[in-house]
Structure formats: structure tokens, C-alpha cells
């Protein structure tokens, strides 16, 4: 089921790359600094978080009182994971509708469209990661050896985002209310993931609910490798991996079935 999609995606790899390239080029084309903005934005974001949280608000992370940047890093690690996931989901949600005319008039592997989104979200995310690492290295916090798990975590986050996004994107073509509900769900999801807070500050009866959210495990793994320099919880990640595979398989199957009717509904 995956193979034909991968083959066609490989055949169209240049198109995928040039689409991502075009997207970024179009975003910065008439600005003087051009592509520099791609790194200025995330650096500013990381620096503002670091300064406001550590210096102005003096927010401390429980148990890490000696590191005044701990909370800023905690927050940014969580945001890193969440923004990758939610960018992919929310853009996949409308990708077929946004490209409706193209899908009607041109024949090309439709799987390219979510892949382009995943690619551009990945680049955005890597730039933010780079900015976070640079800013905190300058402030004296260098990530440890556990940071090496990062690529794996990012890949898993992308796969989960694609699985969820593709599923919702296909549904959205036929039931447009999906497109209205999902942004609300994403906001809710953000607060049901320990990004801004640590799990031990919320009521214990809600903690179980938190663990049902696959993004909780992923976000905590991000925090582990970026802040605490501890290994991710592989047992929990294994489950997430299985869930992600199932979700991807299901959404690809649905995508294939729906493909024949998708253009009819656009």
C-alpha cells in the first residue's frame, strides 16, 4: 500500500523539492533580507522566550531551580514538537480543497501535496531547532549526548502529523465541517499536552487523560533530550510508533479509496 505511493513520490521528488523551494521563495521574495528572515524569525522567538521567561518573569522549573533558563528550554522544546505536528495537521486539513482546481485539471500523484507540506514544515522546524540551540548555547546551555535522538523524534512527529492530517484532509473534502472543528481540537490539544506546564501541576485525575494523548509522549521525549539530557521513554514511544503506523496505513487506505471521488466533490 505504501510502495506505489513512495515510488510516485520518488519520481516527483524534484517537483516536491521545487514546490517547497517555491513556497519559501515566494514568502521572502520581495524583502531585502530575503532568506535571512527564515532564521531571524526563529532566533527572535527563541531569544524573546529566553529573556522574558528567565529574566523578566524569573519562571523556574520545579526541580531545576539552579538553571534559570530551564523553563524557557522546557517550553520551547514542547513548542518545537507541537508546532511541527500542528502545522502539518492544519495544512493537510485543507490541502486538497486549496488545490482543488489543480487536482481537477492536472494529473499527478496527489500524495505529493501532503509531502510538500511535511517538507516545508520540517524546514521551518529545523530552523527553529537551530535557533533554539544557538540561543541557548550562547546563554550557556549546550544540549547533551541524548540530543542525538532528535532526528528520530522529529521523524516520528512528522509521521504522526501526516497520519492525522491526511485522514482529516480527506474527510474535509466531503464533510467541510471537519475543517472548522479541527482548529478548535488543535487548540484544545495544545493545552492537553504538557507544553506550558509540567504534568505534576495538574489534578491527578487528569494525568491519565494526558497520557492518552500521543503528543504527550512525543513532547516529553523532546523535553528529555533537549533539557534533561535523558533518554526518551522508548517503551511509550514504541506504542506511539505502532499507533502512527496504523494511522498512516489507515489514512493511506482511505486516501486511495476516496481518491476516485475526491475530484467529484471539489
Amino acid at each position, binding site marked *: 500500500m505504501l510502495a506505489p505511493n513512495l515510488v510516485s513520490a520518488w519520481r516527483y521528488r524534484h517537483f516536491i523539492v521545487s514546490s517547497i523551494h*517555491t513556497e519559501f521563495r*515566494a514568502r521572502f521574495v520581495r524583502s531585502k533580507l530575503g532568506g535571512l528572515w527564515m532564521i531571524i524569525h526563529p532566533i527572535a522567538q527563541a531569544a524573546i522566550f529566553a529573556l522574558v521567561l528567565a529574566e523578566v518573569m524569573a519562571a523556574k522549573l520545579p526541580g531545576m531551580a539552579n538553571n534559570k533558563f530551564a523553563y524557557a528550554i522546557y517550553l520551547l522544546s514542547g513548542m518545537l514538537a507541537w508546532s511541527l505536528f500542528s502545522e502539518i495537521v492544519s495544512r493537510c486539513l485543507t490541502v486538497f480543497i486549496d488545490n482543488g482546481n489543480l487536482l481537477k485539471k*492536472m494529473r499527478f500523484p496527489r500524495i505529493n501535496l501532503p509531502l510538500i507540506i511535511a517538507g516545508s514544515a520540517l524546514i521551518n522546524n529545523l530552523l527553529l531547532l537551530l535557533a533554539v540551540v544557538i540561543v541557548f548555547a550562547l546563554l550557556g546551555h549546550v544540549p547533551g549526548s541524548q540530543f542525538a535522538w532528535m532526528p528520530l523524534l522529529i521523524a516520528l512527529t512528522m509521521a504522526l502529523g501526516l497520519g492525522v492530517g491526511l485522514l482529516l484532509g480527506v474527510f474535509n473534502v466531503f464533510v467541510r465541517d471537519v475543517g472548522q472543528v479541527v482548529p478548535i481540537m488543535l487548540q484544545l490539544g495544545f493545552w492537553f499536552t504538557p507544553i506550558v506546564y509540567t504534568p505534576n501541576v495538574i489534578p491527578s485525575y487528569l494525568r491519565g487523560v494526558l497520557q492518552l494523548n500521543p503528543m504527550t509522549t512525543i513532547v516529553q521525549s523532546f523535553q528529555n533530550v533537549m533539557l534533561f539530557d535523558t533518554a526518551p521513554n522508548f517503551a511509550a514511544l514504541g506504542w506511539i510508533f505502532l499507533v502512527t503506523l496504523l494511522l498512516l496505513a489507515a489514512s493511506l487506505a482511505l486516501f486511495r479509496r476516496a481518491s476516485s471521488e475526491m475530484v467529484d466533490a471539489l
Partner: protein
Amino acid sequence: MTTEALTIRDLGKAFRSYRSEWQRVLSWLGVSVKPANEHWVLHDVAFSVSAGEAIGIVGQNGAGKSTLLKLIAGTMRPTRGTIDVNGRIAAILELGMGFNPELTGRQNALHTGGLMGFDRRALKQIMPEIEAFADIGEYFDLPLRTYSSGMQVRVAFAVATAFRPEILIVDEALAVGDAAFQRKCFRRIEAFRAQGTTLLFVSHDTETVKKLCSRALFIKNGRLELFGPAKIVCDRYEQHLFGAQPSPQAASAADSAMARFDPSLTTPACELVYGSGKAQIDSCWIEDLEGRRINIVETGEPFVWRYDVRFNEPVENPVFAMMLKTREGIALYGVDARQLDLMPASYARGDLASVRFELSNCLAPGVYYLNCGVRLDHQNRVEFLSRRVDTALVRVVESAAPTVAIGLVDMEARLSVTVSSGDLVQQR
């Protein structure tokens, strides 16, 4: 065995609607759900096309032409039946799909070429040819947003036809762009055909279909009404279009006046009538020099455009006028009483003026539209007392021998070629 480029069997397309869209989702999961409604836009279409053939597709808007093309191009899936395609399809359903206004022509060519599935290296290799074909000079390296729409069309067509496809589908995309570029496009299409490309050409312009295509399909209400030689199919389509029963005599250019009058050409649905009401045009018709009512004339045969004007108020010096246009609305000829030295006259209420324009005919074969009107030229404005636009159609058919190869008019060329021997020239 001839190689069929395209074979279509029992093709049907239905748009299904369900009581709830979730029932549609269930239907993908293998649950048999009965759709609440099936709207068949295409049914029982079957035909086959051999390699190198050019097939025109005609039909009214909404008849199912575009659906058929989308099914063949593969952007839509059939509900029933099969489409067997031999080779690569290039479908120009709309020019400029996938273009980004911020990219240059060259970058867009590379980008949309990728979208069409072309290999990047091959695209880069052929880029000089794309640039030459588009022929927009230094604009090729400027952002697309600075282009005129004509320039965009040039780049779009150049990319879409950068590589020869086995089947080329063109959906009226060529209607845009200037005439010179259109010619260039048709030349490229013809060159492709010479190399074995099959052409599927959709157009409302039956003259172009007849010129370009050997056979044609007439799609009517989602069904294949007729498939056969382009001329016969186009004639049937026009008869259908002008809203009357087909008259078998019309096609043959026999001598009797009956055969020179095709009722399906009268009172076209496109007629537009307006005016201030001081006069009205009671009737208008075409007749031959002997006064027989006709609407089919042979090339070179003069005809008379007549209409009766009834005046509802006293009018001084009205100007009688006429015009002849092509289907595309190009005015070929217009004239009024001022050019023709008609003596000024005044008319009383209730007067009937019988107007007669005797016309010599240098029109190429085709269908033409006639206007008539009567107006008053005031100091700085024109008042139409009554005007009927596109009120009559005249079909010009070829007399025994064709006199026009291409175009709208017969300029009655006399050809002579003088030969001087090369040897003589050299010897002086």
C-alpha cells in the same frame, strides 16, 4: 492490426450524493450503501481512436465534454467502463496551472514541468527550446506577475508541449493568446501529429474542428450523439445548436430554392433586439437576386439582406444600417445609408420602409451573422430607433471547386508563376 491510441468502452460517470457524507465513507470501507441520488453526466460512451488521428469534440456547455476530457486525462475516475490509453497523455485543460506569480518564466517552466512529471534534467536540456517557443524575450527571466496574460499563455503552452505526448488533449485553451501565437501552437500540434500524436480537440468553433480534425464526436446530454467524419458531425451539431429539426436537403447544394433555405438557421436564440421604439423592424430575411428566400449561398454568389421598418412616429432622415459578423463577433462588413448616398427622406407615422441591401459575396465558407437597424444621428449621440443584432444567419457553402484555403474572405487570387531558367540567369 492497427494500434489504437485510445479505446473507450461503455464509459459512464455519475456524481453520487448520499443522505449523509459519512455514508460515503462507509461505502469506501466496503459497506454497501445505496446512494441517495446518482446524477449521470456521461453514459454509454464508447469509441476508439488510432494513433495520429485528430478528433474534434463538440457539444454545448454542460453536455459532458469537459467531464469526458477529465476522465481521459485521468484527473477524474470513471464510474463505469474503461479507458485504455496507449502512451503518455498531455492534457491542456487549462493553461498556466501550477504557475506561481513570484517565480520567473524559466523557474515556472521548470516547476510546472515537474508537476507534469517531466524529468528535471530533460527539462533543463530542453529549456532553450521552451524559451524560444514562448518568445517573450527578456521577460522569460522576470517574475510572472509582470507578464501580460498573453505572455503567460505563451510560457504555459511552451511547457505543456515541451515533449511530444502520444495523446494531446486541448480544451479551448488556445482560444486565448494572439492570432500569431495561435498559429504557432497549431503548427506544433500538426508537427506532433505528423510524428504520430493523437489529438483530442475541444472547441465551439466548428470551422476549426473541420479544418484540424478528420473525425469528430458530438456529445449531447451526456451521450455520444454522433461519431464520424468531422464535417458531418459539425453540421449536425450546428443544426442542433440553431434549434430546429434537421432538414436533409440543407446539406446538398441543389438548385431548388427549398435546398437553399435551411429552417434550422432561422431565428437564432442569440438574437438581441432593442431600440427607442420610434420605429420597429417587422421582419428581416435574406433572398437571392430573384427574390427567393434563402439562407444558404454558394461562395461568390451575391445575396440580398432585406428588412421592413415600420415607423411609429414621424422621423426625419433616419439612417438604415447593416452589419455582418463572424461567429466570434468579428465585424466583417458594416455599412449604412450615409455611405450609400441614399437621399434623405422623412417618414410619417405608420409608414413602412422596405430596405434592401444587395451584397456581393466574397465570404469564405462558414456561418455568418447579420445585423440590421435604423437610427437617428443627433448632434453628438446616436439614437437607435430599432436594432436587431445577430438576427439572421447565412451559411456560405463551397461552390463546385474550393476557392479559399483558409480564412474568412475570398480575395480571388489569380496565380501566375513565371519561370526563368537558372542557366539563363547565370549566362545573363
